[in-house]
């Protein structure tokens, strides 16, 4: 490993986590009023806001309209101050475009698209602060926002990343661990049905270790699912409670 020791001999990571420990996740649904659904998630120092609009009429050119299912439209953008070095543009660069595409593919797979033919659902993701795992946080935030908007989903989508250092798989890697050059595996799963909707791996990893890392990442997704699920239930009970009291 170059310079930095990502995993100490005692088995702790740079930020003091154990290999299979997620960062602290805090989230909130219904941050904004104007959007149909919105959510905010903090995974350690990665902070993401997501807003969902729709389903509504297809905007812009009608040629985009799909006659048998809803058009899922995503936009991923990063605040110019979100990264360590200032970004020149919040979106439109290659990485953001790629991320936009990945988000679209992910949510195309989980939204019950056939329910809203000839319509459009917008998912806008805004990264306010980035410290690794941007895709994962974006997916998790967007899932919560979709739930807040009341859009029918097959299941939650939870995404989690994992790395592999010193023969140990580490889950939910931070920016520092991402930039170490080691392998990075990103997976988005449907936790209940244990299906994978998105899987990406960078850098080199021995075939034998793949399943180990994947297991760790899938486990991470399930853990995230527990947290998200709790947040959703809390939110719903709070909302229904306030509804009950206003009546």
């Amino acid at each position: 490993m170059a310079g930095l020791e990502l995993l100490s001999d005692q088995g702790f990571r740079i930020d003091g986590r154990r290999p299979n420990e997620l960062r602290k996740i805090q989230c909130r649904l219904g941050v904004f009023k104007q959007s149909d659904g919105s959510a905010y998630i903090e995974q350690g120092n990665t902070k993401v806001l997501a807003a969902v609009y729709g389903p509504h009429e297809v905007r812009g050119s009608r040629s985009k309209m799909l006659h048998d299912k809803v058009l899922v439209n995503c936009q991923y953008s990063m605040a110019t101050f979100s990264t360590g070095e200032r970004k020149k543009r919040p979106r439109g660069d290659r990485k953001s475009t790629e991320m936009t595409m990945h988000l679209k593919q992910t949510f195309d797979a989980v939204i019950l698209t056939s329910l809203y033919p000839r319509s459009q659902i917008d998912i806008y993701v805004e990264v306010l602060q980035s410290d690794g795992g941007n895709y994962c946080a974006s997916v998790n935030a967007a899932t919560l926002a979709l739930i807040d908007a009341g859009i029918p989903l097959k299941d939650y989508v939870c995404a989690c990343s994992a790395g592999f250092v010193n023969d140990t798989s580490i889950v939910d890697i931070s920016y520092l661990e991402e930039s170490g050059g080691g392998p990075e595996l990103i997976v988005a799963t449907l936790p209940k049905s244990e299906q994978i909707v998105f899987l990406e791996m960078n850098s080199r990893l021995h075939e034998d270790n793949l399943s180990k890392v994947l297991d760790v990442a899938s486990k991470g997704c399930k853990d995230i699912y527990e947290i998200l699920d709790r947040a959703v239930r809390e939110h719903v009970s709070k909302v229904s409670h306030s509804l009950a009291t206003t009546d």
Partner: protein
Amino acid sequence: MTDIIYSEAEKTYILHGIQENYREDGRGCEDYRHMEIETGVVSNTTGSARVRLANTDLLVGIKAELGSPSPDNPNCGCIEFFVDCSANATPQFEGRGGEELATEISNVLTRAYSNSTSLDLKSLCIIPKQQCWILYIDVLFLECGGNLFDAASVGVKAALFNTKIPNVTVNQDEDDMEIELSDDPFDVQRIDIKSAPCIVTLSKIGHHHVVDASQKEEACCLARLMMGVTADSTITALKKEGWGSLNPESIFEMMESGKNVGKVLNASLLSLLEDEEKGSKRKTVGFLK
């Protein structure tokens, strides 16, 4: 502005209310809506602030970077404004949809700060003609509920207050200069915001004018006057905006109330920021409230 279409009846309702100094949400003509400010919300910036004014929501992040000063002004640092309207606010802002509004806001901010008294840019200079701090002030709109200009200026001022630029020591060799950055988080340079302006937007609705127009009121407004007002009630910028025109008397009236409102706004903002600083043990909540 984000488009809202209202019926004539609705507009008349708002108009009549304003005539009676009673607005649709119960405010008087010179009252602001509820505002929440929190500083230091984004940890990897030099300074940041979040402002929520009713349902206008924005985040300001300031990043200080080292650069070379402009040749016109070799002894000063620079500030650069950048505004981004997130599509989170409204789908119209998707892609480049919010760009026009964003440029407009950043132009007004630049105008309000384009004088040598608002900020001490000299203090941002490290080596004259060679090195200086460039403050990138980035405003990110997350929700639009009217009066974006005022909210942005309040956010900028709060973020500047929060800005902590690491102290720099210059070691001079024969002809080589070396810059050393302090990594002690408390060995920092603060920015004096005492004379920084806030923008007050006065919207002319019917024969009267209001401050802090909501989105609905903005839809009824033909022309507005934006003023950069400092705590000493000097004016750092004026800009008439919108497709209507104003007669001279009403401009003077608007300037008068802008001056008064701006003074109060600046004073309460400063006291709020100082209070927050004192009780800085309070946990930052950000969007998790």
